[in-house]
């Protein structure tokens, strides 16, 4: 449809203005997000790329074939997958329990919330050091508790077989607060009338949980699963306090992001770093699309 003159003129009054409002945001976004993103894509296809000079010898899939034949990267994929597969379901189940407790009308709920949520706002490095101390072989608390049950001490941090379990325990504890908050929000979105109706119908508490709460909570649970899967796929920082910045005590606990970091920061092999970054991005993208799909269906409730 043709716009009238008056309409066009009235719009013109405001025309240059939006750009001024957007500019500070867009400049930062272009320089520090869009450009590095595109550049990483590009670098992943450049052969023998030199970051500082920008020189390279040609385009190709070389970096990709190299990372996929690199034992450390494969190891990283495997560890990350294992980590995700254990941390996500376990922390979800525990969080579901905690959320249903916190959802009860109890006194001091503020205090309880603080206790449950505070790991979320504290530095991974700092709390990681505490866990490192609790994982300590000789004097650590965890081994002390194991001794209660007559179990032998475990060398969590120096026996490579126990490195991943240690990382997982720390991860579960670390992921729980966010999961609980999301689930609690899901709980609070459930219309209380459903419960009233169920109670009028004479349903037992257990039935109410499995027949009403759980199905209504399912989309939220789905959401937390995806959100946690995304954040767990990026497991990396936890290695610094626990293993002094190494991928496990025997260099066997690579993760995807650790590999990326290692290639970039320690080995200076940027093509490989970029290629692994692209792989990570693709994983995150697929998971995000799943998340959006769940959220869209969530609106239907």
């Amino acid at each position, binding site marked *: 449809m043709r716009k009238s003159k008056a309409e066009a003129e009235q719009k013109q009054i405001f025309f240059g203005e939006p750009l001024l409002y957007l500019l*500070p945001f867009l400049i930062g976004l272009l320089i520090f997000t869009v450009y590095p993103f595109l550049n990483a894509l590009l670098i992943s296809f450049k052969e023998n790329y030199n970051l500082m000079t920008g020189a390279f010898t040609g385009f190709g899939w070389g970096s990709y074939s190299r990372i996929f034949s690199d034992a450390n990267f494969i190891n990283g994929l495997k560890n990350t997958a294992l980590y995700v597969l254990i941390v996500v379901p376990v922390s979800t189940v525990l969080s579901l329990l905690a959320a249903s407790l*916190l959802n009860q009308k109890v006194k001091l709920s503020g205090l309880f919330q*603080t*206790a449950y949520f505070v*790991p979320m706002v504290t*530095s991974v*490095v700092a709390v990681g050091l505490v866990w490192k101390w609790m994982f300590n072989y*000789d004097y650590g608390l965890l081994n002390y508790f194991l001794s209660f049950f007559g179990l032998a001490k475990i060398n969590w941090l120096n026996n490579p077989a126990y490195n991943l379990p240690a990382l997982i325990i720390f991860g579960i504890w670390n992921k729980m607060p966010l999961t609980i908050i999301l689930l609690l929000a899901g709980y609070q979105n459930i219309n209380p009338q459903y419960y009233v109706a169920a109670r009028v119908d004479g349903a037992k508490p257990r039935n109410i949980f499995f027949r009403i709460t759980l199905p209504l909570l399912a989309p939220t649970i789905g959401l937390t699963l995806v959100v946690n899967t995304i954040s767990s796929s990026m497991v990396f920082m936890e290695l610094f306090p626990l293993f002094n910045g190494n991928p496990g005590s025997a260099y066997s606990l690579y993760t995807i992001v650790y590999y990326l970091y290692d290639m970039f920061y320690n080995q200076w092999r940027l093509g490989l770093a970029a290629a692994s970054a692209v792989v990570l*991005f693709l994983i995150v993208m697929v998971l995000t699309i799943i998340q959006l799909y769940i959220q869209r269906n969530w609106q239907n409730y």
Partner: protein
Amino acid sequence: MKTFRLILIYCLLIIGGLIMAFPFFWMFISSLKTAAEVNTTPPTFWPQRLMFENYVYAFSKAPFLTYFKNSLIVVGSSVSLTMLTTILAAFAFSRLKFPGRDFIFSASVGMMMVPFEMLIITNYTTIVKIGLMDTLTDLILPFTSSIFYTYILRNFFFSVPDSIYWSARVDGATNWRYLWRIMVPMAKPALATIALLNAIVSWNSFLWPLIATNTTAKRTLPFGLYAFMSASGIRYERLMAAATIVVVPMIILFILFRRYIVEGVSRGGLKG
């Protein structure tokens, strides 16, 4: 039956809360122990003698005061700059009309999927090339535009009725005045939430300082703590004292603003 159920709920809540919060208790208790007491079996759950010297040691052996100051500067500046760009952009995306608005917005939101780790490769070069390597500025600059917060704030701005905007326009306010006199004061709770989430993420940031700083004088707390561990060896009472220094400000922030933080997190999760 009912009281039994209530007692059970309280017991489980307390046990769960103890497990979740225990590492913080343990960190604090250990930070006040002597070296000998730390390494005893069975462990003690209350220090025999309060060793505040551990804190003194941490502050004297590593420049934790400098780290603290750097952290404050970085968090303060990056939160204020981010708020500024976020407010302006969210306003443009929600209230102003211009060609390509929705496209630019969707494209930006799409960029949220890109993990930060993917960006460090190029951002590192950018920082080096513009000569900002190992400055506090380089810890701030890459984080001044947040798609995530802009997205949240835009949604809030959208919820403000048109009639408020047009009332203000008829009352003689320009867009700029409307934004600062009406919109921003109305958005205070949303802005507080965003600022808090941003401050938490910024305070705890570790990877970027690790890459973009290399002298002691430019470190922020988490990286400083890590460096302290590498440098001064494993003396847990001292490490725990240092970790306490890093953690306490955020715990205080959380206790003071729990509602805002929980509300913000439940709406969108914690993102950088």
